[in-house]
């Protein structure tokens, strides 16, 4: 795996959120993902970024273009130092929400990407990794 490009953005407010979402879309386009794949990874990032703002008091997003053999991928890592997720299994249930939302964020985002990884520790924070590959 080779790191081709990396962008780090601090997320503190709605403005950073939209800006970060724009950069995800821009880099997705740069590696030649289809419009559908661009839309999926950007929407998935949007769900995770919102979680980060609401539950984690913001955090950092790292967007990377990765090379693996002959293919390219886009990795989106969202890190916060918030309260963490107490019950991960519950958090992935469609419809479960702690803030009156639709509860689609985590399961929905997972559905939209090729690889999904969630690490969360109570009162320490949450890291979500999303990955899509150019086919």
């Amino acid at each position: 795996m080779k790191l081709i490009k990396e962008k780090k953005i601090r997320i503190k407010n709605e403005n950073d959120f939209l800006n970060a979402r724009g950069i995800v879309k821009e880099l997705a386009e740069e590696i030649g993902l289809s419009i559908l794949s661009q839309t999926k990874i950007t929407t998935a990032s949007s769900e995770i970024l919102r979680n980060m703002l609401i539950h984690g008091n913001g955090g950092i997003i790292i967007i990377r273009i990765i090379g693996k053999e002959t293919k390219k991928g886009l990795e989106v890592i969202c890190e916060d130092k918030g309260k963490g997720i107490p019950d991960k299994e519950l958090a992935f249930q469609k419809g479960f929400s702690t803030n009156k939302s639709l509860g689609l964020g985590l399961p929905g985002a997972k559905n939209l990407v090729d690889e999904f990884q969630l690490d969360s520790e109570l009162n320490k924070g949450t890291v979500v990794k999303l990955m899509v590959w150019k086919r």
Partner: protein
Amino acid sequence: MKLGNLLLITIQSEIYDSLGIKLLNDIAETLEKHNSKGILLDISSVPIIDSFMGRIINNIASISRLMDAHTVVVGMQPAVAITLVELGLEMPNILTAINVEQGIELLNKKITKMNRIDEADQGEKDTD
């Protein structure tokens, strides 16, 4: 923008969550003020609709129904539609049209149908 008894609302590009909530309130107030019977919500230039924005659209449709108006969502991009379905967001009560012209046609049909039902109810009462 007002078009007879219809409201045409165009969402330009991407909007913040707080702007989405403001939009919902503004629409409800405008519906009451102008006694509009239909909303055309043009989202053809919106590249990303996530669960929050999807919920705003669902709410606009539900609120308009409670206020005796119909909402037609116009111009959803194909990639957005596929993504919303895979995200798991359901929009069972949303009327849609490919473009503004067809949206207006659909709304006018809906409004005419509602007027006919009202007139029929009125007729029944008169004969009592």
